[in-house]
């Protein structure tokens, strides 16, 4: 990417201290992540549970402060923001949509409450009538029509898919440039999942908003994302254009992930021997590749040196010693 990305992280890390006051154990939830999200781009962040995907979302929303590293939004480091006004301004640019549509909306208020509150907070210049008109506009944008009636409903009167649309409407109300969507479809039935995925595509195309789509479902990621970033044990292990990464995954973990995806349209039953491995050690991890204990290709250097993201092709990079050697060998020939 030539121009400045909308959002970029530079060696972003977040560690959590475990145990009591004198404990020195730290959990490395996110380590050294360089992630870029361009304008009008949907980036899917995929990985297994515990790989640090949600921590990434919370870091980017500034709900957690980074341990080290930078978050550059339009070139400016936002991790350094301290004033409440600046924080509010940033959060209006980068709102979040949560996983569970059943618990992320306050059940005692009508669904208009959240949207109107967001508007009052982030766009104080609007009058009451303008706020209402704006709320109707975003409800229509996310397909909750007739908007006027929908706004008057209580969450319990809505289906899971409709509630998730309310989540997106709340995010859209503040005129964002990037929406952080943390597993927005994983709690929904398959028959309505497609609707939310199409909504994300629509928002990108019509409104030009970028989306960080966090998911463990690669098939959904493929359906909406322009680029995919794969996380494993807090590290970003592979990133590239969606089709390229899925057709030609270079990191052994991405390969495992792609082969394990259940696909109703093509019955394959590959051997998933590496699947038997244990979850990675992220508490006080040693130097070296964190996938090594499960990796069928591991070589000696993997235990000593943590692999860095290495270019594998245009806009495609993977953090794997073996893949890097293959690329180097290919270039030398």
């Amino acid at each position, binding site marked *: 990417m030539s121009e400045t990305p909308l959002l970029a992280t530079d060696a972003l890390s977040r560690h959590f201290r475990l145990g009591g006051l004198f404990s020195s154990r730290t959990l490395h939830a996110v380590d050294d992540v360089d992630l870029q999200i361009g304008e009008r781009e949907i980036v899917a962040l995929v990985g*297994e*549970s515990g790989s640090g995907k949600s921590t990434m979302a919370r870091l980017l929303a500034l709900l957690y402060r980074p341990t080290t590293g930078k978050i550059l939004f339009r070139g400016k480091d936002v991790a350094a923001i301290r004033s409440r006004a600046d924080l509010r301004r940033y959060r209006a640019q980068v709102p979040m949509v949560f996983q569970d549509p059943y618990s992320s909306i306050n059940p005692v208020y009508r669904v208009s409450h959240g949207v109107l509150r967001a508007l009052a907070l982030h766009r104080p210049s609007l009058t009451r009538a303008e706020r209402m008109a704006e709320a109707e506009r975003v409800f229509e944008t996310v397909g909750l029509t007739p908007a006027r009636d929908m706004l008057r409903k209580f969450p319990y009167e809505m289906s899971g898919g409709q509630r998730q649309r309310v989540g997106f409407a709340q995010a859209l109300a503040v005129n964002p440039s990037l929406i952080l969507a943390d597993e927005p479809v994983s709690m929904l039935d398959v028959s309505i999942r*497609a609707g939310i*995925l199409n909504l994300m595509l629509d928002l990108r195309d019509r409104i030009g908003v970028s989306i960080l789509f966090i998911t463990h479902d690669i098939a959904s990621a493929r359906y909406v994302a322009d680029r995919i970033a794969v996380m494993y044990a807090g590290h970003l292990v592979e990133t590239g254009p969606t089709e390229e990464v899925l057709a030609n995954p270079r990191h052994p973990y991405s390969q495992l992930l792609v082969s394990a995806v*259940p*696909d109703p349209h093509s019955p394959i039953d590959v051997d998933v021997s590496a*699947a038997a491995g244990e979850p990675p050690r992220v508490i006080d991890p040693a130097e070296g590749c964190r996938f090594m204990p499960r990796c069928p290709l591991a070589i000696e250097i993997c235990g000593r040196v943590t692999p860095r993201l290495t270019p594998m092709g245009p806009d495609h990079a993977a953090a794997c010693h073996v893949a890097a050697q293959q690329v180097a060998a290919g270039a030398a020939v």
Partner: protein
Amino acid sequence: MAEPLLTVRGLSVAYLAESADVVAVDAVDLDVADGEFLAIVGESGCGKSTLLFAIAGLLSPPAQVIAGEIRFRGTDMARLDDAALRHLRWRDFSVVLQSAMNALNPMKSIEAQFGDAMRAHLSGSGASKAAIHARTAEVLRLVGIDPVHASSYPHQLSGGMRQRAMIAMALLFTPQLVIMDEPSSALDVVAQRSLMRQVKDLQQSLGFAVVFVTHDMSLVRSYSDRLMVMYAGQLAELAPTESCFERPLHPYSRGLLDAFPSIRGPRVPLFGIPGSPPDLAHPPAGCRFAPRCPRVMDRCLTTEPDVFEVGASQVRCLLYDGLGTGAGVAKPAGVAS
């Protein structure tokens, strides 16, 4: 053909309410043969878990079996009292519940929990300390957990291991039927795949039958023998798994299948199934899927479809009633009252 292991006939289960009873399972017929792997799929609220709880005899008020019978090896389980049911449950059939995080007791080690189950069902030397210890190690090994974990507490195990420990517990008495309610839905894809593989291997080596409930159709494609698709409390389609994926008969099965994005092949636009399932307290007249059906005909709105046999499949859809697919063909109301 010998009598199937499990026979369900005309089973209806309702949640009794003051205003209107909600019939969550409506006149379901189902057979499970010895050693068969049957998958039940459907959206949330389609009655799949209620059906499974009814089969396992785990319903509690306000849910109640209002009609039909459940025969397990010839015994009608719906008529058994608790004491008689206790003899069957866990020894002859066992249940693996959705969330192993909640199904295991956090205050007890794995072995202590397995011991509780064994003491409840065996007496004398069968439930001695040594016997419990030996059997625990044996079943843990079956599911690929190192027996050193027998003394672990649930929080010390990963999600996948806890789920496998639940399956090990279900195998304590080598049952003939294991009922599973979304055992893998809390796991990520890689762990999910390895768990499915393991269930299938165990089923083949130990020969028990599996009734597997899931909302994720794609998960069972390679593992189940037959697939039952439920919609709004009723059987929509029951077919050999392959044929259901290759040629889904019911428009709902077709819709479910098309709602999945694929990671192989060309990227095609998805539509899902517009609308939402009906309110079971007031089901619509005619076919329950009609309001969402892309192939709806006039008579679908008035005639409740019967279950039709098409080859090896059963399907509840008027497209297969032999009256043609043309709209406006009236059918005498012989099926719907």
